[in-house]
């Protein structure tokens, strides 16, 4: 088949209709495709929510590494409880907070496979703190994708361990008072202190550039897992327009102006020599 450009196709337009399969969808013309490992159905996430972007980049990494058949995921309890409806890889749905223990069971029995958990802030840093800290401390060779939006989304807007000081939620209606309701938990920084932890990096998905960086970080973490370096955590600071009572745009501004100054982006711990 001869190499045709858009100019050539355009020249032919007057004579014949475009055949989309043959003409437009040439491999060399592709600038974007949905990851194959992301199941092509409508997601239940609210408009503007960062979860869908996080799902997408994780599955893009799985596609690019060609590991769809070698990876097992663990879904949490929270908004992403249905992650296994969207991710076309073998998955297990864990009890609330127990994802790192479930992942430990899977990884220990199949150390040659890739294993990841996908958890929100309540799941990972409140009810699942013990499971998270001990899996990290044992250096379990797994990836934890940690979605931090500072709120309980699925139960519609209660205070999370990562809720910012002064932030209004349904259970901190006058704003989070750190004197009575505790301080936001810097769980990623805490975990980075443990010797079993290889890699901790914090990202966001509120701008295209940040999406690219977050994706790179996920790829790195899975590469480190392949090398057997130990526990890796990629935190994604993101939004919750519905429960923050904001438009998607306002919520991304809130991420930029309030969340990120509190949870600064970038590497918190990298493996030696990396």
């Amino acid at each position, binding site marked *: 088949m001869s190499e045709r450009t858009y100019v050539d196709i355009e020249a032919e337009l007057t004579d014949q209709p475009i055949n989309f399969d043959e003409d437009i969808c040439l491999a060399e013309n592709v600038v974007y495709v949905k990851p194959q490992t992301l199941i092509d159905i409508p997601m239940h996430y609210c408009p503007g929510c960062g979860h869908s972007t996080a799902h997408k980049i994780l599955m893009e990494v799985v596609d690019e590494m060609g590991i769809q058949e070698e990876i097992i995921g663990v*879904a949490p309890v929270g908004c992403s409880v249905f992650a296994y409806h969207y991710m076309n890889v073998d998955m297990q749905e864990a009890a609330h907070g127990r994802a790192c223990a479930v992942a430990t069971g899977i990884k220990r029995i199949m150390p040659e496979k890739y294993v990841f958990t996908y958890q929100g802030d309540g799941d990972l840093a409140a009810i699942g703190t013990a499971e998270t800290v001990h899996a990290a401390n044992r250096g379990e060779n797994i990836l934890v994708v940690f979605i931090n939006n500072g709120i309980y989304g699925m139960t519609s807007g209660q205070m999370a361990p990562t809720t910012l000081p002064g932030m209004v939620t349904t259970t901190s209606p006058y704003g989070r008072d750190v004197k009575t309701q505790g301080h936001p938990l810097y769980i990623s920084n805490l975990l980075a202190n443990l010797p079993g932890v290889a890699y901790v990096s914090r990202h966001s998905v509120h701008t295209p550039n940040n999406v690219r960086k977050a994706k790179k970080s996920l790829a790195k973490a899975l590469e480190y897992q392949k090398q057997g370096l130990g526990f890796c955590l990629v935190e994604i600071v993101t939004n919750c327009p519905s429960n923050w009572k904001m438009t998607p745009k306002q919520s991304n501004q809130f991420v930029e102006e309030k969340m990120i100054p509190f949870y600064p982006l970038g590497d918190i711990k990298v493996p030696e020599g990396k």
Partner: protein
Amino acid sequence: MGDLKLMKGNEALSEAMIRAGCDAYFGYPITPQSEVLEYLAREASQRTGMVVLQAESEVAAINMIYGAAGAGRRVMTTSSSPGISLMQEGLSYIASAELPCLLANVVRGGPGLGTIQPSQADYFQSVKGGGHGDYKLIVLAPSSVQEMVDFVKLGFELGEKYRNPVMILTDGAIGQMMEKVVLFEQMPRKTEFPDWATTGKKPGKDRNYITSLHIQSEKMEEINLRLQAKYKEIEKNEIRYQAVNLDDAEYVFTGFGLVARICIKAMEMARAKGYKVGVIRPITVFPFPTQVYADIAPQLKGILDVEMNAGQMVEDVRLSVNGATKVEFYGRMGGMIPSPEEILENFERIYIKGETK
């Protein structure tokens, strides 16, 4: 023919686990069953490559079991009463997701932190579900160290046959006492896994996912109906019990596990005094051997149910006989073990002298 050895109950159970080709054990120390984790840590991975991991809590241990069971592996955990309470959340999820696994509860006296001495006070928790939702474990009640070995093999087989969690409901006395046991030969570990297991998506096939979440009520009811149909099937196929001297019996002593052995001794003493006593020992306490009680009830003057608790299995015995004969209860609690003399004395008090306490 396997090896003949003198072993402690907990160690015999651990040895049986290794020999049954168990792939992984996740557990947390608690008296009176800490020997299990110790024995496995010493023996298991060197001999079969089995994974042995000390978890940070029983909550974590049962969820590690969930993960490895979901990967289609033969997995087991053990604990004692307070630890088993912590595992109830995980067991509910495991039962709902229909994952096979085996656990042993080496029961100690409760409630609360209680005592480290033997008890049977976790009967209700074990046979009626234990965690939230309508589900059942298959529950085996050994009364000897030999059965601690045999029921490991049987437990794995039943779990895998029905895709259901199985519990060995034993107690601190059987866990700690030494008896001679015949050990079965080392079995190979599995190399092939069920087609539902999450071992990585198979080419050309749909992904596997394991879940207990079904938001639509119609779907969740369907899951419940499937589970209940399975439990009916288990009740049809898997009832096991021991019956002693029922043919001419006018009275029956009944109890499970350790107490059943004491009942047999008490029965012998009663027969020496001329009382026609038999013994029924449920081996499976779920499924409960209802029919054997129902069948014998019309010929009896009464049943004495003996337990190391405040009277739990007695409710199932009463339901089984459905009023056809009298069912009385005698029990000790808090780690106390009834003696044969005590059982005989209480039998005579209730049924011969007609006294109530």
